[in-house]
């Protein structure tokens, strides 16, 4: 439950608006980094790859700012109920965005190495995986900003599709790797790029779970694991 009624203490609303705006800005920067890393790889654009590495500091700084604003909000205003969930969730979303940007940097660094070598024809294979991972990130952020628990929860299910696609790609690249030849190093890089995209999907799921908590106070993390443990205990 969330009310749009302003707080009596307007400073409280200002702190909230500031926190929310910082997260939205950080999310934009993290997604831009990911987009430039992938396009740098696909388009063999060294400048884009360099920009990702250089701009990662901005994302790191944003995470620190969000944590600081969150801490200050907790200390000054003692938020409760959905306000408290907003602060906690924003800080957790920021941590996940920072890791998404780190993966973008990993991809950009791999891409930079691949750019120094002849073009690998299998590079476009990662494009569908990126499209799906990016869609997951976008939906996760929408779930957070719109307090949409239904959308947030749907990410768990859709992550399975991303996992399957990742496994297929790894199998393809591993097979090429085993064949040996001049492209061996490229396939190794592509395996790591795929893994980063798969991890980005997981981080999007985390954000989706945080959005569910924000909207409905339900903690759906590790639900499947907990259910299977309970099932095992019952047997």
């Amino acid at each position, binding site marked *: *439950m*969330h*009310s749009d*009624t*302003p*707080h*009596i203490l307007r400073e409280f609303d200002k702190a909230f608006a500031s926190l929310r705006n910082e997260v939205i800005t950080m999310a934009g920067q993290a997604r831009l980094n990911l987009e430039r890393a992938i396009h740098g790889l696909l388009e063999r654009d060294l400048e884009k790859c360099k920009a990702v590495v250089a701009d990662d500091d901005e994302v790191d700084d944003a995470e620190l700012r969000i944590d600081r604003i969150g801490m200050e909000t907790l200390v000054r205003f*003692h938020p409760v109920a*959905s306000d408290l969930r907003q602060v906690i969730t924003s800080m957790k979303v920021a941590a996940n965005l920072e890791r998404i940007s780190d993966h973008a940097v990993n991809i950009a660094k791999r891409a930079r190495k691949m750019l120094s070598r002849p073009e690998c024809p299998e590079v476009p294979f990662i494009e569908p995986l990126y499209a799906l991972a990016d869609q997951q990130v976008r939906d996760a952020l929408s779930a957070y900003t719109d307090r949409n628990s239904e959308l947030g929860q749907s990410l768990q299910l859709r992550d399975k599709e991303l996992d399957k696609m990742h496994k297929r790609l790894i199998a393809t690249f591993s097979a090429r790797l085993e064949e040996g030849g001049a492209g061996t190093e490229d396939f190794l890089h592509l395996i790591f790029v795929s893994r980063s995209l798969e991890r980005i999907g997981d981080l999007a799921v985390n954000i989706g779970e945080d959005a569910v908590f924000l909207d409905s106070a339900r903690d759906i993390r590790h639900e499947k694991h907990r259910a299977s443990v309970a099932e095992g205990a019952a047997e």
Partner: protein
Amino acid sequence: MVSDSPAPAVPEIAIDQLCFSYGAKQVLHEVTLDIPSREITAFIGPSGCGKSTLLRCFNRINDRIPGAKVTGGAIRIAGIDIARPDLDLQVLRRRVGMVFQKWNPFPKSIFDNVAYGLRVHGEKNTKVIGERVEYCLRRVALWDDVKDRLKASAFGLSGGQQQRLCIARTIATKPDIILMDEPCSALDPLSTLKIEELLLELKNDYTIVIVTHNLAQANRCADKTAFFYLGKLIEHGPTVKIFSNPDVQQTESYVSGAFG
């Protein structure tokens, strides 16, 4: 059939469809609420919402106000309707003690303040009275501070100590229930925390109902919290639930400071 599940606990105070008026002005509207035994229940809500009126119904001290009366429903304490004509009010008020917003020790010694209720209720044995006074002063963590000046005036104590003395005076007559109407509103933060610590210790033996405007205090101390607005009980439940994920929008707005 044998069941392993425990029998449902009988509420210490059962409020059923209670309506209350001051003359023509109705201030409580069909309040239904069970207050469990050996827990702290906090009543919260904006000024004029009826929470203090409800508290004062439990030991019927509202009876003293001209025109004030229960116009419907009932309150049962340990299963007994407290509106029964044959109920001895002195017995009720011994079972249901009260601590007020402003500490109000009698103009007597520290010892006599605690002993007062025992003497009023007929206890004459000085050894019994002395032991009970020491026990009560220890329970409120005041004994070490005052044991060497028990005959000194209670007014020489600090505000927080005087409030703890009033709590000692309340528990001296062995009540089952302690009602507290904003007991810390005039205390400094450290004295407030000492009272809160005391409440948490006392709840092992007493059912405590506290009216407070200090939401953080309700959050820290109370097992259950009830939110009132315009004489109606809006929501009641475990304090963690009320402050983390209440069911009613009005409750959420009030505890979040977005009310009005």
